[in-house]
């Protein structure tokens, strides 16, 4: 497995990118070169220099520090939303896939309904409803991710529950919770992990999209999406300001995507 991973370019590059992301994240938890929210209106739009590695923004805040701090936001939104989507999607998918019949029908119709209109609209409405902020952004994105997890869980359940080792466990008297916890779950872990990895990158992109629509993370909390959006106003005068968060998003999303693809290849699971 490890050997195979070493030969999978997707996995390798993805892992490297994510390691970089993690290093940035951990460093940001320890300290940042400047207070990411400290303004210095005298020193706005300083180009990258030794003092400000990535320059300063329109309020003279150190972009590098904000990028670092933004990694935390990305991480929070990503993890929370994936956790929410995963938890809800798993439960629904499990019920749907294990029971089948009317429960399955109802849940699948609900999922269809949600899939039938664009996630960004759903997130938009949800955030409007519960108010903006990183928590509600994560929640809204989590909700939009539910069908994805629900479907994969359902598919896995339907597939695995017919397998011989489930039958064998059943004949030995295993209860349904036990079947799920000890037999089905461990075997659907890889598609779930792959889906979660890919959902993570979707969440990062969706956060940026929401920022573009004026919602999402509350300023001045740094978030890459918000930074990118704010930087658009200075695209012509100070292009590097937009370039940095854009690249951060792209690289992180790329990292997660590649990792997810790599994992998919390595574990040979089929997900969309």
């Amino acid at each position, binding site marked *: 497995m490890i050997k195979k991973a070493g030969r999978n370019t997707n996995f390798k590059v993805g892992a490297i990118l994510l390691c970089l992301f993690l290093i940035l994240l951990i460093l940001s938890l320890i300290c940042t070169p400047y207070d990411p929210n400290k*303004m210095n209106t005298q020193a706005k739009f300083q180009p990258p220099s030794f003092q400000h590695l990535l320059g300063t923004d329109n*309020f003279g805040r150190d972009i590098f520090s904000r990028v670092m701090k933004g990694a935390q936001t990305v991480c929070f939104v990503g993890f929370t939303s994936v956790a929410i989507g995963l938890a809800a999607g798993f439960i629904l998918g499990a019920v749907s896939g294990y029971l089948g019949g009317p429960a399955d029908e109802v849940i699948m119709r609900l999922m269809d309904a949600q899939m039938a209109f664009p996630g960004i609209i759903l997130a938009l409405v949800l955030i*409007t409803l519960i108010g903006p902020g990183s928590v509600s952004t994560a929640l809204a994105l989590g909700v939009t991710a539910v069908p994805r997890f629900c479907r994969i869980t359902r598919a896995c359940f339907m597939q695995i529950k017919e397998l011989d080792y489930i039958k064998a466990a059943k004949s030995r008297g295993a209860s349904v919770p036990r079947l799920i916890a000890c037999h089905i779950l461990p075997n659907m872990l890889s598609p779930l992990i792959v889906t979660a990895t890919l959902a993570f990158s979707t969440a990062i992109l969706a956060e940026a999209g929401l920022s573009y629509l004026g919602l999402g993370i509350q300023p001045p909390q740094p978030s890459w999406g918000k930074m990118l959006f704010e930087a658009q106003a200075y695209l012509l005068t100070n292009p590097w300001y937009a370039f940095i968060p854009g690249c951060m998003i792209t690289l992180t999303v790329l990292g997660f995507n590649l990792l997810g693809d790599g994992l998919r290849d390595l574990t040979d699971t089929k997900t969309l």
Partner: protein
Amino acid sequence: ATQKEAAPENSVPPVTESASPSAAQSTPASDVTVRVALGSEPDNLDPMLSAATDTAAVMMNVYEGLMGFDQKGDFIPAIAQSYTAAPDGLSYTFTLKKGVKFHDGKDCTAKDVKYTYEKLAGLTGEKPLNSTLSQELVKVETPDDYTVVLTLKQRDAGFMSKTILSIEEEGYADNSTKPIGTGPYKFVEYIQGQKIVLEKNENYSTIAERKPTIGKVEFVIMTDENAKLMALKSGNLDIAGVSAPNAAALGDDFSIVQGPQNMVQVLALNNAVKPLDNLKVRQAINYAVNKDEIIGAVVDGKGTKVESFLSPSMATYYNDNIAAYKTDIEKAKSLLKEAGYEKGFDLTITVPSNYQTHIDTAQVIKDQLAQVGINVNIQLIEWAQWLDGVYTKRDYQSTIIGHSGKLDPQDFLNRFTSTYDKNYFNFTNPDYDKLVTEAAATTDISQRAALYKQCQQFLVDQAASVFIQDPHIIFAVSKKLDGLQIYPVTFFNMSDIHVKS
């Protein structure tokens, strides 16, 4: 008509940074189409039903009032040739110009004026559409086809600002869909979500200097700042309001026209909630906020600092000798200490998410207030929620918003009176109410101005809110066009525009 005195020092006159506007030797270009960005969807094309400034800015090309106004905010004759006010101030007699025609070719006469005003004031028995007029206007008489007499219930010095209301054709009911006015431009079409198209009114005669030259104008509805910028850059737009940072970046293809827009950006404090109900706290906030820094950081210096709830562009009424708060952190801290908030407190600034300027301002203020120990929490909410929660329900601590101006100071200052419907500041002070009422009834300009100046000082003393700046309106104008003027009330006066030779 009202006369403005010499422009005060701190009001910045409209400046055209590029070619001089006096190069008036313009080529009439009937086949030119000028595309102007419009920041929001029109609310209603019928001026009687419309309240949005952007809509009016467009439709004032189509409609005209008895009077018009110029760049300085002075009233100029429009449909009315002249007027006289009765000495007791209770009636106004307007003599109309002859030969003014609606776009459908009908003459504009006194009966149209009567129809308009009676409808607005609800004198016909229907529901009134304008609350001021419904309270003030008693009757409208037309001694002859070209004379109109408006009779008021009480003296109102601000009545002149009601003379610019658009005159609509009597009996014509389709103004919402197919507006017909007397203005220099005729309405062609409105495609929801896309654009309003106007074309030159060849027969226009009302105001000589407003004879149109541009053949066709398209007001393109563009809500996205970047889309606007890109459209300008790629030549899809000719005129657009742009943000300060973008103005600098547009380069040589555009000239930049900027100036104060008679707007006050305010950090509105809810005077009814803790701890903002404490005068000392409000004063402390005023001391802590550094307006110059905000102007520098947020609008790139393209704003005029204001000290009261009135824009300096209302030169006559603006109190430029106001005893204002000079930024003073120590003072602010000691005030907070006196108020019992030595350790500071949490303050939520609720900001509508669609105004980047206000969001940026909030960020700077957060930074500034942090120095005196006030921990600001910025809460972005959707515009609809802002209107509902903050503006209507007054359920907030503080907010940042811009109030755009009317031609009369009353419209600004009565927002703080306790009876005013949308006094979302929750500022109540009987003395202030009295002052405003008194000023409204005073017809003498200088006396009136003195009273309003007193009002302003009052608001400052009470630290009713933090009055920040009049952010300049900045237009990028294609180099092939010329002549754009800025008015104290948002107005895309297309008659000013001409093609450069």
